[in-house]
């Protein structure tokens, strides 16, 4: 019984630690996603009418950009709720 309690306390503390870790990187993660989105958009600018960099470069980088393309697509899908995401991030309710 005491062992169970100890494990529970350990799990609880781990959870708190994890939550702190996540909170501490939340803003940086948001910034990272934005940068990844911007990077993909810079290369794929022709989709949204932005001036594009050399097409050769876009084509050469494309095979390595799975992550950025994924983020860009997610961003485009969630576009209508960008204010919601920002509000959540800054705890505005």
């Amino acid at each position, binding site marked *: 019984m005491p062992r169970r309690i100890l494990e529970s306390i350990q799990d609880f503390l781990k959870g708190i630690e994890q939550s702190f870790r996540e909170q501490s990187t939340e803003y940086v993660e948001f910034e990272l996603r934005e940068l990844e989105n911007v990077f993909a958009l810079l290369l794929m600018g022709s989709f949204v009418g932005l001036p594009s960099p050399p*097409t050769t470069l876009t084509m050469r980088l494309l095979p390595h950009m799975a*992550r950025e393309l994924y983020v860009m*697509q997610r961003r485009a899908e969630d576009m209508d709720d960008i204010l919601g995401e920002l509000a959540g991030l800054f705890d505005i309710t």
Partner: protein
Amino acid sequence: MREYLLPKKDYRVLFVIGKGGVGKTTTSASIAVALAEKRYKTLIVSLDPAHNLGDVFMTKLGDRPKKLAENLYASELDMEKLIKGYLEHLEKNLKHTYRYLTVINLDKYFEVLRYSPGIEEYATLEAIRDILMKGDEWDVIVFDTPPTGLTLRVLALPKISLIWADKLIDVRRKILEKRAAIANIQGPLKFKAGEEEAELPTEESRDEVMNELKKYRSEVQFVDGVITDPEKTSVVAVMNPEALPLYETIRARDTLKKFRVPFRLIVVNKVINVSGEIPELKVKLDAQKKVLEQIKGEFRGVEVLKIPMFAEEPRGMEWLKRLGGMIVGD
């Protein structure tokens, strides 16, 4: 001899530019023939989609350099074939890499790229880069170019590409820094796409995108280094003594100056010389005289060479040798 047409440092690159129909191909072919005669191993390449280099040499030319005479090699690049081949190779490559990524509709991305503006310029630049990379095989490389507009855009591309590469490297560096900061706290970052899970790189040396960007930058830097080096590259403009080719040459000069590409010689082709008065030609001759005077005032620091209008079309080796001798000098 005009020193700026001869190899000085490793090899010499000559771009012969001008408006359509002024005699670019004949001029570039003559220069190549004359230089080959002077024992410089010379390659002449036509980048013009509407090739007529083969017509001037009166032989059939292809993608690979064909030996036409001692020290003289010529080729005509099929730009359409080049673009098609390039895109096909890339499509195959991309579909192979992305075979697991069903979340991304790759065809849609690819269609946009296929029709993206400027693909012809980039393909031309790639072709030039490939030839310059093997530049040491030759003493002189003469490029017979498409009409001025496209050529100037191609020559401007390395500088523009460098700016883009630098900006993208900056953004990429920031991405990697943020990733590293998060990974320090949370451990390695994972990204799951479809069935496969991959670790996101946080170091520059392990990031494929950064490596490719740096590789691209150094390739573009190499082309830029060659085409802006006065000891390696000279641009020769060909024009007729008429107002429109003059305006185009002035515009070309200004653009080349902006991108620091050395502009050295203007060949004024088809200058009419008549003795006595011919009333039917008076208007034409007056216009010619006016343009020749304007050239004198407009282009300081650039040599101007007048080539007379010949009684017959200068085709075939003998004619080319004669004309080339006049341009290269003795």
